[in-house]
């Protein structure tokens, strides 16, 4: 057929198309096209080509470019063709130009003149063509050249021209809102154009404007409703009907606009109810377009202020969608169900079987949409089923983008609704294993923190079981090839921290595994850093426990390699490890206390612990401190002197205390960062990937005299406070003891601990009742929909669903929030809010914000004060930083230090039970003081560098 030349094209073009159509491979096609390009290049530059011939060349160029080849050599000829007087050629020229050029192309400037001329043409078709080109070609710079003419054309007698002029203005507005802002009134004016087509066209710019800002257009609600009513009542000419449906696209656009205008606006919404109800009643559910309008109505209903009657109609319509055999309608049904579920959470229950069907449908689009719906309706009673399904699905797909999305949704749901920590860890393992490099690194930190903290209960057994199961699962997984880096970091950390903890695995076994990891992933510095630190911990724990600890040969060689590493971080770790090898068990125990990852780090920014020292120095005639702002050059001298004093010849650990903290402490260790404060610098090691206590070579002196207060203790630990906000059951909060009572009892540590214990033991009960996955749909449905707990809202609104306990828990939360929020001003030690590192997108993660945005999510509520209490108790034990310092800085203190463990035995044990947070010696009064500080809302810090920059500017 094509070869007959019946298409008004030359034989050559027909042959070209034919030969390309018959090409057997892409390379053959490319060859043909390249030959064609050569021909065209030669021909198109010949002189005196007949116009008709040129037109064909241009069309062939367009064809070539459509096939993906560069036709830029001919662009200029297309531009020339737009100048032609013949409308046929002109149109061809414009068509080619709009397809070839983008609005920033250099050649655009050559066309603007032509467009200007054509916009003035007497022939409305020429004007239309020029306006078409305007939509595509006019850029921000050239808008002023044509805008006046386009505005004038809004009054053109031909409706086709007016319509296109509106569209051209709309495209100008999209490109550069500022250059058209003064013309916005034109859009409103044209809304009352005689021609429905022009009116319909103005809806596009108005929709965009309303999307940007609703408020200036609220007055149009009545107009829009009126227009919609007229359209729905078939007042438009018949030729706007499509399959007996009047002007469907105008209706759809109007409904979209009304959805925006009515959102959260009761008064506007009420004006819409009647017309939406009418349209829904009249809609033709047999035709595709009728369902399109119906769908749009439901979207609108779910967006505006809810009307019970309309919601009912919408629910019926959704039921019909879901019952339909058409996949398209099912898709729409699932989509609308997801929209409506926010308003009436119970609606999903009557459609459970339909939803399950969609979930198992072979249609991937439908499946994804259904997962989206499930994501929206997850609650604690069905989280296990849903997340399991999502993970299975995640494993089955290859699309990275969607995999990432599914993984992050799994994580989010698991964190929000996890019924147990064990389940959470298992789930996270699965997510990591299959999509580890796609998930947010925060997730890994959170997982480590959870394993470290355990259940946060007095149940030491379950904690160690949890860890053991984590260790076991990791030992199983670690040999698998190509694990994601983030997951390996978690594995290394857990193996280092807990690998040998319960004696099931020998140190050499764990070390061997860790060495294997470091070797297998030798290109990943972060993983190696984690591995070597884990090795160090394994070694230290062995030695501290009094066992014979020897390094494996492969570990030795690893250390040698790393100490010559190009990465200064790895080098430092290797050197630290080597330094530790020379220390005795006692020292090691203090450097690397067992299971101390939950210790809190705290910075006393005002450095009150130095007061005594300062006073003494002043008495001895020292110069008083001059704030930085008032200082002149005098500083330099002391700086140099200090520098010399602190100079240390080797890379080895340095345990001597600095004599005098001065504004600048020069440090030799690469990853040691100094943050000058107003008074005295606090030096903190920021070694990026490590969240375990590492050896701290250059620690500023914490004055021994004041060690009792413990307020200056700083140690790098995984920060663990607040973690329980994420997990657990609403019953957490059911403890009759209000936070106040906890607050009180925490001061007396032992009572506080018991108090917590009773609180925590409760939430376990409902976990057993969790539904298990069943193959049968009914059961699945039951597990998905059965739970009566209505799903509480995610992050943004936080409108907790009608759980009977909500109000109580909310109050409960407020009770506790007040003490937390207010006293920040009172306490001297200014602490940054907990880093959101571990909060995973919970904006209300830090305690201070709880007061303003009270998150009604009851599970969180219940846990907030719990974790507060735990923190309080946990932090009541000073971390061993100061003790470590004092060990080496002042021999006199040894005596007093020795008492610390004894003191601990009595006072710390309870808190150790509660959260397994405690480790290391402490002083009794420190307990009280720190507990008080905690209660006042001072949060511990982690070594997150950003955090410190927050803190210190």
């Amino acid at each position, binding site marked *: 057929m094509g070869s007959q030349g019946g298409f008004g094209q030359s034989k050559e073009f027909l042959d070209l198309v034919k030969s390309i159509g018959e090409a057997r491979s892409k390379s053959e096609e490319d060859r043909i096209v390249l030959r064609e390009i050569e021909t065209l290049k030669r021909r198109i530059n010949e002189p005196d080509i007949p116009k008709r011939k040129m037109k064909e060349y241009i069309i062939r160029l*367009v064809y070539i470019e459509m096939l993906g080849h560069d036709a830029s050599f001919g662009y200029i000829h297309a531009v020339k063709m737009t100048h032609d007087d013949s409308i046929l050629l002109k149109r061809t020229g414009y068509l080619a130009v709009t397809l070839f050029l983008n609005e920033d192309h250099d050649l655009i400037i050559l066309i603007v003149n032509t467009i200007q001329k054509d916009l003035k043409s007497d022939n409305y078709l020429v004007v239309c063509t020029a306006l078409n080109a305007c939509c595509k070609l006019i850029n921000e710079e050239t808008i002023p050249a044509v805008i006046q003419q386009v505005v004038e054309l809004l009054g053109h007698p031909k409706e086709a021209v007016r319509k296109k002029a509106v569209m051209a203005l709309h495209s100008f507005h999209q490109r550069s809102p500022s250059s058209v802002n003064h013309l916005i009134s034109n859009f409103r004016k044209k809304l009352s154009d005689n021609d429905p087509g022009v009116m319909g066209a103005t809806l596009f710019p108005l929709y965009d404007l309303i999307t940007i800002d609703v408020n200036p257009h609220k007055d149009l609600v009545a107009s829009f409703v009126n227009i919609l009513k007229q359209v729905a009542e078939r007042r438009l000419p018949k030729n706007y009907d499509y399959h007996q449906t009047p002007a469907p*696209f105008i209706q759809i656009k109007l409904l979209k606009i009304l959805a925006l205008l009515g959102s959260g606006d009761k008064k506007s919404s009420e004006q819409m109810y009647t017309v939406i109800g009418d349209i829904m009643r009249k809609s033709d559910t047999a035709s595709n377009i009728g369902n399109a309008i119906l769908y749009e109505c439901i979207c609108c209903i779910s967006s505006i202020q809810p009307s019970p009657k309309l919601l009912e109609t919408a629910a019926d319509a959704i039921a019909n969608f879901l019952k339909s055999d058409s996949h398209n309608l099912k898709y729409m049904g699932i989509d609308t169900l997801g929209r409506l579920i926010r308003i009436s959470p119970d609606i999903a229950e009557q459609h459970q079987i339909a939803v399950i069907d969609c979930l198992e449908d072979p249609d991937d689009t439908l499946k994804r949409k259904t997962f989206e719906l499930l994501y929206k309706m997850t609650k604690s009673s069905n989280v296990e089923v849903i997340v399991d399904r999502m993970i299975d699905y995640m494993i089955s797909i290859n699309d990275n983008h969607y995999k990432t999305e599914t993984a992050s949704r799994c994580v989010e749901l698991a964190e929000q609704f996890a019924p147990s920590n064990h389940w959470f860890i298992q789930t996270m393992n699965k997510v990591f294993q299959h999509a580890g490099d796609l998930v947010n690194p925060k997730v890994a930190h959170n997982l480590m923190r959870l394993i470290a903290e355990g259940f946060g209960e007095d149940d030491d057994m379950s904690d160690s079981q949890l860890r053991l199961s984590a260790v076991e699962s990791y030992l199983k997984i670690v040999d698998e090839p190509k694990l994601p880096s983030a997951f390996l970091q978690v594995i290394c950390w857990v193996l280092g921290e807990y690998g040998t903890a319960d004696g099931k695995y020998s140190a050499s076994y764990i070390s061997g595994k860790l060495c294997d990891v470091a070797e297998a992933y030798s290109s990943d510095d972060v993983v190696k850093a984690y591995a070597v630190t884990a090795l160090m911990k394994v070694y230290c724990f062995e030695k501290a426990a009094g066992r014979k600890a020897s390094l494996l040969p492969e570990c030795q060689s690893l250390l040698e390699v790393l100490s010559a590493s190009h990465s200064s971080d790895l080098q430092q770790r290797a050197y630290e490890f080597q330094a530790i090898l020379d220390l005795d068990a006692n020292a090691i125990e203090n450097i690397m206390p067992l299971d101390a990852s939950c210790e809190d780090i705290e910075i006393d920014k005002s450095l009150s612990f130095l007061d005594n020292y300062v006073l003494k120095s002043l008495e001895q005639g020292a110069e008083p401190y001059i704030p930085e702002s008032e200082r002149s050059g005098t500083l330099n001298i002391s700086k140099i002197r200090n520098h010399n004093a602190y100079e240390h010849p080797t890379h080895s650990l340095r345990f001597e205390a600095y004599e005098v903290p001065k504004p600048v402490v020069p440090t030799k260790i690469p990853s040691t960062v100094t943050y000058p404060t107003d008074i005295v610098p606090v030096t903190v090691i920021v070694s990026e990937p490590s969240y375990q206590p590492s050896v701290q070579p250059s620690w500023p002196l914490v004055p021994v005299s004041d060690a009792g207060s413990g307020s200056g203790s700083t140690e790098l630990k995984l920060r663990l406070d607040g973690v329980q906000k994420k997990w657990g059951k609403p019953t957490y909060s059911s403890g009759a003891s209000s936070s106040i009572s906890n607050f009180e009892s925490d001061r007396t540590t032992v009572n506080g601990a018991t108090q917590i214990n009773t609180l925590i033991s409760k939430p376990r009960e409902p976990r057993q009742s969790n539904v298990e996955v069943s193959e049968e749909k009914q059961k699945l449905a039951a597990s998905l929909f059965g739970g009566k707990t209505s799903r509480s809202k995610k992050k943004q609104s936080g409108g907790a669903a009608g759980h009977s306990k909500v109000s109580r828990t909310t109050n409960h939360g407020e009770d506790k929030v007040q003490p937390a929020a207010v006293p920040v001003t009172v306490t001297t030690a200014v602490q940054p809010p907990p880093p959101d590192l571990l909060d995973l997108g919970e904006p209300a993660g830090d305690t201070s914000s709880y007061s303003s945005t009270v998150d009604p999510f009851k599970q969180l509520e219940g846990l907030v004060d719990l974790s507060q209490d735990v923190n309080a108790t946990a932090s009541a034990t000073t971390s061993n930083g100061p003790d470590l310092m004092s060990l080496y800085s002042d021999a006199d203190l040894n005596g007093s230090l020795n008492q610390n463990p004894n003191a601990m035995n009595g006072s710390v044990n309870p808190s150790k039970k509660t959260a397994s947070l405690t480790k290391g010696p402490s002083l009794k009064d420190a307990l009280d003081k720190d507990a008080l500080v905690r209660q006042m809302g001072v949060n511990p810090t982690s070594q997150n560098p950003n955090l410190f920059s927050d803190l210190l500017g």
Partner: protein
Amino acid sequence: MIRAVIVINDQGKPRLVKFYDYQPVEKQQEIIRNVYGVLCSRAENVSNFVQDSTFGPDTRLVYKTFATLFFIVIFDDSENELAILDLMQVFVETLDKCFGNVCELDIVFNFNKVHTILDEIILGGQVVEMSSSEVVKALDDITRLQKNPNSIVRVPKSISGWQGR
């Protein structure tokens, strides 16, 4: 807003490509390849909608098969899937009216005319016309005008009153 209208045949060869937001040629080809890959893997009797990251965030795709051709529209969330499906119907109906029993070759050889038709239906990424008879009327206007300047004499196809432009 509609981002693109693409017509490809069942071999993956593009027959009509129109992007409403500019994409470089390479990107266009990549999208076409991806679309073809996705559509080939779709079973029969499934929905006409695809959500896929390859078209950009928050974009969706609706496709419809007519004989050997896939008609594809890529758009963002300011459009309605079902309505777009009908829009394609309008487009194809219009083509049918213009070419008389439209087939793949009509589109290949007259894609400039097909572009003209599409421009009457979709302008600047927005649907401006939903009536195929209106589109045909507009086309007739253009055709009549083109006959006036008799500089070009062409052999029309069997369809009266239209020539390749």
